């Protein structure tokens, strides 16, 4: 089931160094792309069906076309490497195992969008990853792949690594821009959208590390080769992070469209200790949970997830078995989103803390049945009333647990829940 498109060089020792990476094909696409017009590069990316790998799944090539034509302002690329969504661990592999793939992707993207400055916004906690990445960038500069004349072509490109300071919200694209500008990382109201008014008030494209890293394969092998993987609407491959109570948790590159339960069994080794499946978080902690029953018909692609009332998200799959206490899981979940709320908008700032305390009250056997309904109402009252979707990430997922596992909450309220269930 596993494929090696993005992860082709992941298992090669020292592929993070330029010498080894070049031996295995790094920067081979540059001759090809610089012979093309930028618009042709964009066209190929659009044709490939590549969708944003940060979670929203917006078509990458289409996003690039939102840049104003003939602008006299600088155009910026911001590479989102703030990978902070719980259960998501894919970009970090690219940063450490094949950073030159990312740099090559950045060159391709910047050429296509006519940008001469790219910022890689990297999660503050990625301390070892940033060292590897920076070393690769330094090597690329030294070898002439970055700087005044990229690979000898008449194209200037500078890449700057910007480290975050440990805030999940800075993965939201406009909060990321604020942070790069040296301000407190708080999402901006849209419109204006970043493609029109982004970094330093200039047109800016923000793409995820994995999206950018998919470009060298697409440009080297053509859109059709990429589309050969996956489904019609979910083209290509994805780095899936499978975690939770499975025998072989880890990062696996798979094409889109595989049945989730097959992947769970054949790739991740199945559940531990012959336990039974309770549910699956399909794409990072913010995506609504799937019950074991729902999971039977789910395939790993955008359209199947949407049809099942959830989202593909970041491809971070968490497997929950029958030992998981859903109420404790929800407490953990809301705790995270409450802690990471930037505190800008009233509903999210005040509401998530309220929700957290209600769940804690239920966990302390002090809850009432009315609390469950209040939680559900608060989800409605908070969701989509805010500048960004952080609150929705919390409420959509929380609502799914309340609706699909309501009996577990009621059990706590009825003083009958086991105090020793583990999560």
């Amino acid at each position, binding site marked *: 089931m596993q494929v090696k498109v993005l992860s082709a060089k992941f298992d090669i020792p020292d592929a993070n160094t330029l010498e080894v990476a070049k031996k295995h094909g790094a920067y081979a696409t540059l001759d090809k792309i610089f012979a093309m017009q930028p618009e042709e590069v964009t066209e190929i990316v659009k044709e490939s069906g590549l969708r944003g790998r940060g979670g929203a799944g917006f078509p990458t090539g289409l996003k690039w076309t939102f840049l104003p034509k003939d602008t006299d302002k600088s155009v910026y690329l911001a590479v989102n490497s703030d990978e902070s969504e719980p259960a998501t661990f894919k970009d970090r592999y690219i940063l450490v195992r094949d950073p030159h793939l990312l740099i090559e992707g950045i060159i391709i993207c910047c050429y296509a969008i006519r940008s001469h400055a790219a910022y890689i916004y990297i999660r503050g906690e990625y301390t070892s990853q940033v060292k590897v990445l920076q070393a690769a960038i330094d090597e690329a500069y030294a070898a002439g792949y970055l700087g005044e004349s990229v690979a000898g072509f008449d194209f200037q490109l500078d890449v700057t690594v910007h480290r975050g300071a440990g805030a999940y*919200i800075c993965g939201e694209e406009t909060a990321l821009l604020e942070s790069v500008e040296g301000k407190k990382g708080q999402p901006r109201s849209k419109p204006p959208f970043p493609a029109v008014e982004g970094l330093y008030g200039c047109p800016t494209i923000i793409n995820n590390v994995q999206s950018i890293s998919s470009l060298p394969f697409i440009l080297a092998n053509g859109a059709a080769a990429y589309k050969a993987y996956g489904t019609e609407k979910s083209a290509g491959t994805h780095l899936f992070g499978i975690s939770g109570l499975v025998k072989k948790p880890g990062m696996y590159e798979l094409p889109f469209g595989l049945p989730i339960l097959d992947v769970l069994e054949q790739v991740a080794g199945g559940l531990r200790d012959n336990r039974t499946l309770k549910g699956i978080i399909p794409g990072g902690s913010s995506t609504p949970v799937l019950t074991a029953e729902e999971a039977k018909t789910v395939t790993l692609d955008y359209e199947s997830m949407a049809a099942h009332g959830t989202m593909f998200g970041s491809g971070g799959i968490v497997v929950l078995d029958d030992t998981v206490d859903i109420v404790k899981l929800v407490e953990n979940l809301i705790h995270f989103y409450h802690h990471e709320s*930037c*505190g*800008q908008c009233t509903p999210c700032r*005040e509401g*998530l803390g309220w929700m957290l305390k209600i769940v804690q009250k239920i966990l302390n056997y002090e809850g009432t049945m009315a609390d469950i309904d209040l939680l559900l109402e608060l989800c409605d009252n908070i969701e989509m009333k805010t500048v960004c979707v952080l609150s929705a990430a919390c409420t959509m997922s929380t609502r799914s647990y309340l609706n699909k596992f309501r009996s577990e909450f009621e059990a706590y309220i009825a003083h009958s829940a086991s105090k020793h269930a583990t999560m």
Partner: protein
Amino acid sequence: MAEKVKLFVNGQEVEVESGKNLIDAIGAIGIEIPHLCYHPALGADGNCRLCLVGIEDGRPPLVPACKTRVAEGMKVQLDTGKIKKIQQDIMEFELINHPIDCPVCDQAGECKLQDYYMRYDAQPSRMTVKQVLKSKKLDFGCGVVHDQERCVLCARCVRFTRLITKTGELGIVNRTDYARVEIFPGRPLNNRYALNVVDLCPVGAMTSQDFRFKQRVWFLTKSPSICHGCSKGCNIFIDHNREKYKDDIIYRFRPRHNEKVNGYFMCDDGRMTYKLENDNRLLGAMIDKRETGFNEAVEAVRRELSQAAKTVILVSPNASLEQMYALQQFAGTINAQVSGFSDGYIKNGDGDDFLIQDDKSANRAAFHLLGIDDTRAGFDTAVAGADLLLSFDNDLSLSLPQTDLDQLLGQVKLITVGSRQNDFVTKASIKVPVASFSEDSGSIINCDGRLQRYDAAVIKNEPMPSMIAAINMLGGGIVSHQEAREGLQANVPKLKDIDLDQVPGDGIALTENEVAHVAA
């Protein structure tokens, strides 16, 4: 005139000014969209989420009104169940961690949380878990006291220090419901406009050290007036109250919006000049340090005037146009010279490029309009050979060095007619008390040549006569403000086309264009 657009509010077609956001444009025709973080002088931030409105067929269908410009044909929904529910929900979120300490909160009575709760929420609390506790009564400097628990984090104060004063002392630290407005450690508010954050704060989080716990605001009478602290003439509200068995006292000045003069703000120094109206007032007539009746003192002055060989009238640069005119007429009848010498009222270099002016007097521009000389040389010429100096509220000790002043007072007899007690006034042989500006009406011209009108705000238990009435009693021909205004209009060419009884609320610039416009 600004362009208009037609749009629909709750299905009703209305015409509003184009180019504005929904809050301002629709607010101008009397339809309120509740909001906490938006302020016209600070722009839209969009954090409170209280101004979310529906746009029928809009994409997106739900928008913050503060960030949405009016557009032709737009269908704005304010009264749908969905929007009303959102307003109620946001108010609930604002209040769950609020201490609801209205009985001891200075903002009570002028608090947006109170007003909006009554109008848009009015539901009992559903909060059954512990509230977030934060710090209280933090000294932020410049007389600003902050209560983090009352704060709704609208960031108006933060934006004020960043956008208006550009001093940036305030920020919001921490995230989520731990977020709070803070100063940097050891770096308190340090600007001359800091107290504006108290006015800007829509709730009771920012209070004034000077005002807190002094009065319940619903007892205060809020009278429009003009600040006399400098020549800018910032528009203000005089908030005053007569408590039972006490006198009418001013508790605070607050800026009153006038886009042509001060916008929404005023400086802290000017704000504190309300104390001059309450304290150190000349409360009774005196002859040679002996308290006497008002009429007796007036008689004494008249006697002195009739005996004097040469009289000089010294007028204050704070006097109103009407007062100056009445004095000029009076001076003519008694053959006295008029001087406006008051160099000491000017503090060179004290002003800034925002509101504060070097000249700490309110109406010096009127000297030039009426031809009153205010130079030292003119004053020296006037007092040469004089034996009587009649000062109308002009504190000469500010302008003359001590030795010069002593020498002058050795030569002339000093009589003061004024509202204030000070060292110079104590040297007078006769003192006649009159009303101060907050108890009187008048017209003044600011540093930019803008004529503004103020009316009496405070009525004392024992009101002092107005200066014009006092001048009249001394022998001046002008009997009333009305007569002074008519005289000014008839005799001062620049005021020819201005009806001083009908000065527009935002004043009138003494330039051809604006005068012609108002006259038409």
